[in-house]
């Protein structure tokens, strides 16, 4: 339910930022904040996992340790992909600021959508992982 709420929020944020973008005729501070929010959300979730792993890993069973390391591989790969998408989005935002052609705006919209999906998925993945944790 919380993941759904976040997805709804992110969709709303995109609508608001795109609306603001149209009203100002260029890349807006709202899009920049959406990028920050996506980064902060994913980094918060990753930080939660890192803290959990650092504190709990030594005390868990070998099976749990294997599960933690397997999840870590997937999580870190998702983080790297999000970082790459963020880099593309930020580059496009700067380009739209100087050249707001429809092609650039469409590309920016597409990367924003991908950004939301990736950030929400990372948060959801960490939440799912920790909810399934059965460490003592």
């Amino acid at each position: 339910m919380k993941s759904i709420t976040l997805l709804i929020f992110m969709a709303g944020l995109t609508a608001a930022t795109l609306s603001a973008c149209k009203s100002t005729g260029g890349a807006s501070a709202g899009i920049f904040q959406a990028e920050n929010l996506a980064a902060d959300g994913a980094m918060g979730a990753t930080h939660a996992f890192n803290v959990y792993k650092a504190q709990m890993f030594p005390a868990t069973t070998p099976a749990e340790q294997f599960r933690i390391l397997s999840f870590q591989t997937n999580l870190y790969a998702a983080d790297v992909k999000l970082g790459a998408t963020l880099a593309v989005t930020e580059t496009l935002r700067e380009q739209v600021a100087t050249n707001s052609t429809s092609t650039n705006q469409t590309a920016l919209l597409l990367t924003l959508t991908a950004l939301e999906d990736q950030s929400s998925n990372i948060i959801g993945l960490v939440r799912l992982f920790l909810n399934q944790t059965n460490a003592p």
Partner: protein
Amino acid sequence: MTQLTPEQIAAIKLQIDGAATIAEQITGTVAPQYVPLIILGQIVADAIPGAVADIQNMIAGNAPSDADVQALWTKIGALGNPESI
């Protein structure tokens, strides 16, 4: 006092809702019975300031400064090295 447009007010409301949701998401990720409370506190304390800063920036409505952009690129770099987060 700065007059906000309806679009800005709507965006701020979404930001506040989003920050609360993210904070809930992050704290909700950890089953309290399994993790010492101090770890939970550390996670929340680290996560909330970022969300608050996002809201403050949204309220200010200013175009991102060079420092803001640099900070975002620092975050992008950190995501490329997630074990450091």
